[in-house]
């Protein structure tokens, strides 16, 4: 019996490792391919002769990306929207989470319900559009920062974190020492919430950086467009050639030859900021998000 089990456990381990290795390859291959294609010889990319590793090392794709004015403007706009948007997100999320974490807040259950109800029901696209329009926010950068200023889901994660990871005795002690709630928030709650704040920064920033829906609906000024809208034109709608605003001296043949490689370079350039942010936050995952979402 025991021996039988040992054998079956060994079989299990072998199968498990093999399957996980296959999963690992399936996950990484597309990413590796994009990286390789972005630094390969454009002719080999165009004829489909790059499979895994770069062939005929060449960085012309990146050079072309940086010649693109629309990409630069989109990059700059996305940075601005992401930075200010995330700051607003964190401010609203943490203040609300702190207030609603306090059991002595009169009307706490009602206020929580008012917030939580919006997770299950909403007005939808058209009434929201009419509201944003009547506020005069259409075609302004503010709409990109204000819309979605708080995610109730994230707020509840932060609230749970505060309740379960920061002992209430700390707040009581501070209170006895004459600390008011503002000071408790800034000197106790915020410093001790670093893990959850780090995770929320990643969530919110990725949302701002990667989203294009808000811009699609509310923006049409070319100078306000975020990166994702520019990417959509180039990657999905294939408008590489007709909307190029680079020097005319660069001949059409060269652009056509670089079109593919440039797309891959563009994918890399646009994804790098979030992938760079990720490792910094990753070590907080367990502390921040898991505690927040598991312990009711």
């Amino acid at each position: 019996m025991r021996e039988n089990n040992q054998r079956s456990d060994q079989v299990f381990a072998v199968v498990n490792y093999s399957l996980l290795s296959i999963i690992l390859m399936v996950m990484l291959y597309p990413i590796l391919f994009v990286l390789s294609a972005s630094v390969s010889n454009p002719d080999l990319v165009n004829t489909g002769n790059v499979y895994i590793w770069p062939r005929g090392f060449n960085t012309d794709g990146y050079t072309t990306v940086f010649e693109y004015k629309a990409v630069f403007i989109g990059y700059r706009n996305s940075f601005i929207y992401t930075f200010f948007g995330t700051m607003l997100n964190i401010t609203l999320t943490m203040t609300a989470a702190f207030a609603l974490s306090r059991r002595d807040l009169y009307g706490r259950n009602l206020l929580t319900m008012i917030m939580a109800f919006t997770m299950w029901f909403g007005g939808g696209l058209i009434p929201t559009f009419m509201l944003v329009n009547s506020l005069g926010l259409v075609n302004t950068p503010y709409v990109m920062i204000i819309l979605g200023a708080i995610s109730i889901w994230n707020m509840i994660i932060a609230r749970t974190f505060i309740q379960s990871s920061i002992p209430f005795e700390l707040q009581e002690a501070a209170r006895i020492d004459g600390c008011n709630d503002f000071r408790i928030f800034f000197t106790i709650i915020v410093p001790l919430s670093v893990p959850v704040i780090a995770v929320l920064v990643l969530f919110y920033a990725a949302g701002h950086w990667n989203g294009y829906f808000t811009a699609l609906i509310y923006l049409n000024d070319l100078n306000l467009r975020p990166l994702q809208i520019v990417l959509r034109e180039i990657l999905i709608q294939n408008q590489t050639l007709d909307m190029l605003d680079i020097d005319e001296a660069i001949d059409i043949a060269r652009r056509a030859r670089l079109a593919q490689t440039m797309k891959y370079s563009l994918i890399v350039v646009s994804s790098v900021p979030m992938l760079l942010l990720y490792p910094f936050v990753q070590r907080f995952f367990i502390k921040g998000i898991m505690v927040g979402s598991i312990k009711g």
Partner: protein
Amino acid sequence: MSKLIGRRKMKVASLISRRPIDRLKSSWQLYILLLPSLAYVLLFNYQPMYGLQIAFRDYSPGLGILGSKWVGLKHFMRFVSSAQFKIVVGNTLSLNILALVCGFPLPIILALMLNDCGSLKFKKIVQNATYIPHFISMVVLIGMVINFLSPTTGIITKLITFLGGDPQNYLTKPEWFRPIYILSGIWQETGWGSIIYLAALSGVDPDLHEAAQIDGASRLQRIWHINLPGIQSTIITVFILRCGRIMDVGFEKVFLLQNALNLSSSEVISTYVYRVGLLGAQFSYSAMIGFFNSIINFVMILTINSVIKRISTTSLW
């Protein structure tokens, strides 16, 4: 997670006895802190709910919301009897149910596999590799899909040719829209979805495994009889939440994969509302479609929650 909405009734004893007015006064700073987010929610979440009444009116911008004529269920009848109704609702539901059936079990399986993977280092590598796709934007994901499926140079097309298949232009074929949508979704979200189950698995009591081992249970038996029941309540909670979005198909992804040729299977409620409402300026009609969508979602989450409440101890509220 199961008790998301303030269930703990523990209160600070000294505060209970006081009158409401004193309690309001004593925590005025908390209200100030809450005010910005409350104001945001009231304005940007509740005002549109109020604005939803245009779904029952013939809205014209000149007359305003309250000035427009009340027409009752006219727009609802028009939507239900239109040729688009069956297509749009059918596409939305089948896309979502297929995505749920195919996508829901995978993060659980991945988490169980990772949990029983002996080498911590290998586990970390696989975990992080599977999280990366989650941080790639939808535009980039679909851009990659389009490039990989390119009929001439696409890497997946090459693979299909190599395996003896006959490559086509998959993106323009309605019958390929769903597989592309679902498979790319699996690639992007399986790893990320497994986080919550991994967290739940770390809470499974190791004594149970030890006892089972002494009784001669194999690894698979222990996974089936200890780990799976251990994360059951998490699975149920995630399932209920997912069912509450049975009518929500992510607009961004569908819209990017959509083209004139695959519209018969790719037109879903959210893209239809965008087309008819914003591009076609039929505000009342499309607001009604959006309302219909939200109501079904809302009823769905209430139903699933109450059904599950009856058959198990886990529920949202």
